[in-house]
């Protein structure tokens, strides 16, 4: 009965998107199939067309997109060209969708249980009471707190990870045959990500639901998928069983994706190690009320990289704001090269601004969209060093070469650049000031893995060449392992542990650091059950991350 086992067959799918006043192909002839109870991982960089394929499996395209050819057959029903009524009956009941941002997908004005029951009741599949019973069962299975009453809360009353799990519950409400997961854990902290991932795996396994799991993270998909399809530029790179793809990838692109997670290259020892920045006992609060930094002390040596790690809300970005003067601390002091600097931006000398540069997470918003690259990089040159004319132009080109972009980028606007190129321009802008310290605030989290790898390598080379120090703020432990000399672990505004990278990353572990480290997904399909077990052991010792 292999025919009946086949749930979804996509054959030669072409999707076009409308951009810059013309239709462009986004998905170029992708074919795939999915059996009942199977999980297929779709993986690729942004723009690979994986979300498009996910949505197309429901017979849907985003506005401004259209399916031009190919067929999508779901359990014997052809979805391409099907009328709205047919599609409406399938969506939400037989095919469900879990989006990346649960917060944006729930209606903040209704209780969770009402939103849970809506589809099922409306489609006449169950009564409200039955839906409620089902909800409680699912909430329990997904490890949500107080499953009996959880549904009575409003979306803002639960955490991001809980909301995401609730969305999974909602998708499971009508016992669908297929669920599309579109980057369901990408917006979550590493530690929360594990819980959601574990919950998803448990629940779809228990109900025998088939799933398409879309992500850009190979290590995540390794935990959950039976088969993996690697996509690039709207085309299939390779497909295979999870273990086969991970252990013996056939294509260079897949190998490159796997290799990104390898560790740092050579570092140069710059000899004399004077202290560039020293933060002493800093306490900071928003509105003088909510203390977000509590007695934090740390220091950075010349030519070294100090990573600050922690979950969101741990105060790591606030530390950067205090150092730059954006948020004057209410206690403690910041010393730059031994000199006490004013707490706020007012009264700081131009020289202090110059020596301390910052690079942001979102290169999109960190670059003025109306300035050309020439002006973006040239401004610090004329502002700090009074450079003009040919001298300035030559230096801009020199900097562009340093960040491996080159002269042809001079007249481009940020809108003409890719995410990785934008981040490189941000780096060049920081370098133009010839700083001693660069604060990097999650600079690789918005980038695809391959691109992020390139940026980290570039930073490493620049450090070797220029002996610049980095304060590297991140929640990504792979990045930390790849670049740090020293590590500061933060939790709820306090420093849990700090010291040389080797000491922090190797046993014996501080319990919280252990929890963080063990949360970083490994490229090993059997890793998730192990880490869940490890977590239960930690929890038994009273170490818990649930906030």
């Amino acid at each position, binding site marked *: 009965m292999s025919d009946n086992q086949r749930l979804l067959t996509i054959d030669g799918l072409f999707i076009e998107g409308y951009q810059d006043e013309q239709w462009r192909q986004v998905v170029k002839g992708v074919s795939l199939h999915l059996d009942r109870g199977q999980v297929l991982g779709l993986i690729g960089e942004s723009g690979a067309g994986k979300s498009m394929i996910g949505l197309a499996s429901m017979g849907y395209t985003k506005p401004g997109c259209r399916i031009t050819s190919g067929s999508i057959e779901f359990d014997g029903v052809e979805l391409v060209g099907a009328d709205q009524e047919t599609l409406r009956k399938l969506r939400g009941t037989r095919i469900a969708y879990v989006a990346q941002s649960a917060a944006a997908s729930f209606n903040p004005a209704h209780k969770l249980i009402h939103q849970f029951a809506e589809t099922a009741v409306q489609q006449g599949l169950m009564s409200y009471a039955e839906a409620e019973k089902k909800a409680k069962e699912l909430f329990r299975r997904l490890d949500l707190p107080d499953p009996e009453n959880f549904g009575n809360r409003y979306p803002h009353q639960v955490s991001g990870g809980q909301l995401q799990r609730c969305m999974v519950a909602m998708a499971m409400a009508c016992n669908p045959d297929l669920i599309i997961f579109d980057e369901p854990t990408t917006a979550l902290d590493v530690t929360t990500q594990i819980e959601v991932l574990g919950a998803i795996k448990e629940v779809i396994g228990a109900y025998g639901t088939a799933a398409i799991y879309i992500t850009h993270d190979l290590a995540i998909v390794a935990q959950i998928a039976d088969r993996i399809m690697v996509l690039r530029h709207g085309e299939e790179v390779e497909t295979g069983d999870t273990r086969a793809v991970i252990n013996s990838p056939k294509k260079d692109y897949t190998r490159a994706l796997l290799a990104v997670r390898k560790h740092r290259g050579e570092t140069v020892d710059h000899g004399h190690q004077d202290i560039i920045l020293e933060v002493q006992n800093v306490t900071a609060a928003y509105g003088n009320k909510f203390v977000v930094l509590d007695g934090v002390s740390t220091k950075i040596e010349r030519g070294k990289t100090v990573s600050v790690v922690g979950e969101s809300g741990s105060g790591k970005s606030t530390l950067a704001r205090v150092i730059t003067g954006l948020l004057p601390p209410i206690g403690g002091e910041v010393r730059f090269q031994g000199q006490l600097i004013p707490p706020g931006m007012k009264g700081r000398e131009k020289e202090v601004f110059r020596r301390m540069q910052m690079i942001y997470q979102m290169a999109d918003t960190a670059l*003025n969209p109306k300035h050309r690259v020439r002006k973006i990089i040239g401004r610090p040159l004329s502002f700090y060093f009074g450079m003009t004319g040919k001298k300035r132009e030559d230096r801009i080109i020199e900097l562009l070469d340093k960040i491996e972009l080159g002269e042809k980028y001079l007249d481009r606007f940020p809108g003409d650049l890719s995410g990785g190129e934008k981040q490189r321009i941000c780096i060049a802008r920081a370098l133009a000031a010839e700083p001693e310290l660069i604060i990097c605030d999650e600079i690789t989290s918005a980038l695809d893995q391959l691109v992020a790898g390139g940026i980290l390598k570039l930073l490493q080379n620049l450090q070797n060449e220029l002996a610049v120090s980095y304060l590297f703020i991140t929640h990504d432990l792979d990045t930390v392992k790849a670049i740090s000399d020293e590590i500061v672990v933060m939790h709820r505004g306090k420093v849990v542990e700090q010291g040389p990278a080797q000491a922090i990353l190797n046993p014996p572990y501080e319990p919280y650091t252990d929890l963080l480290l063990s949360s970083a997904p490994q490229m090993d399909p059997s890793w998730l059950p192990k880490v869940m077990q490890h977590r239960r052991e930690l929890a038994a010792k009273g170490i818990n991350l649930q906030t």
Partner: protein
Amino acid sequence: MRTAINLLKHVNWSARLGLAVIVINVACAFFAPWVAPYSETEVVGDVWEPVMWSAEAVPHNPPVILGTDQLGRDLFSRLMYGARNTIGLALVTTALAFGVGALLGFLAATMKGWVDMLLSRGVDILMAFPTLIFALVVLSVMGTSTTVLIVVIALIGATRVYRISRAVAMDIEVMEYVESARLRGEGLWWVMKDEILPNALSPLVAEFGLRFCFVFLFISALSFLGLGLQPPTADWGSMVRENAAAISFGILTPLIPAAAIALLTVGLNLVVDWFLHKASGIKDVP
């Protein structure tokens, strides 16, 4: 220049029509002394002569195309001179309103605190007066010179421009590239001129078009009440007022300057609509 031509290619037909109307009007305004058949004040014939293609038209050389006004002056020539005064005045006034309004709006958004509070409440007070009453009061106290007229209308316009530019600048001010400029140690002027202004330009230009129409109508309204430009200077608003009595005799002369006002307003709005659509970034999917 090439980009300007490229841009024109993508302009839709309604905006092109509007653009044509504006170009013709501006050309008339510029070349009035050379192109107009008669001078602004010359009496050429009888009172309220009909248009030249009507059966009762009185022959003249050069022809009196649109008939004559209440003093027997050539209406067509006066329309051209009127374009000069009306559009010129509106342009100066709008530019002044934008200069002052946008500068203060940006200043309030970047400095925040008491500067913002002071400016915003001041603007609130000015806006509390109905515009026409406010203008009437000031003009009757200060006298109806062109300078006072410009300053008063610009002030009224500036309050509206202040509001919109402050709101737009507030949104831009929180962007990281502004923060990054501050962290570079940049001063207020750079932040306003180089970081905020270029990004606030599209909504402001769109607003400029609309505001221009309002100023233009406002001058007409004031002229209609006798507080605008003083005779014998021609402007479209006064021309409607001076000829208004003709309507009771079934003579259509006052409708001609009124039509000119309407045409330019519609033309300008067609262009502004197109620009707003462009600035909103809505994709046209065929």
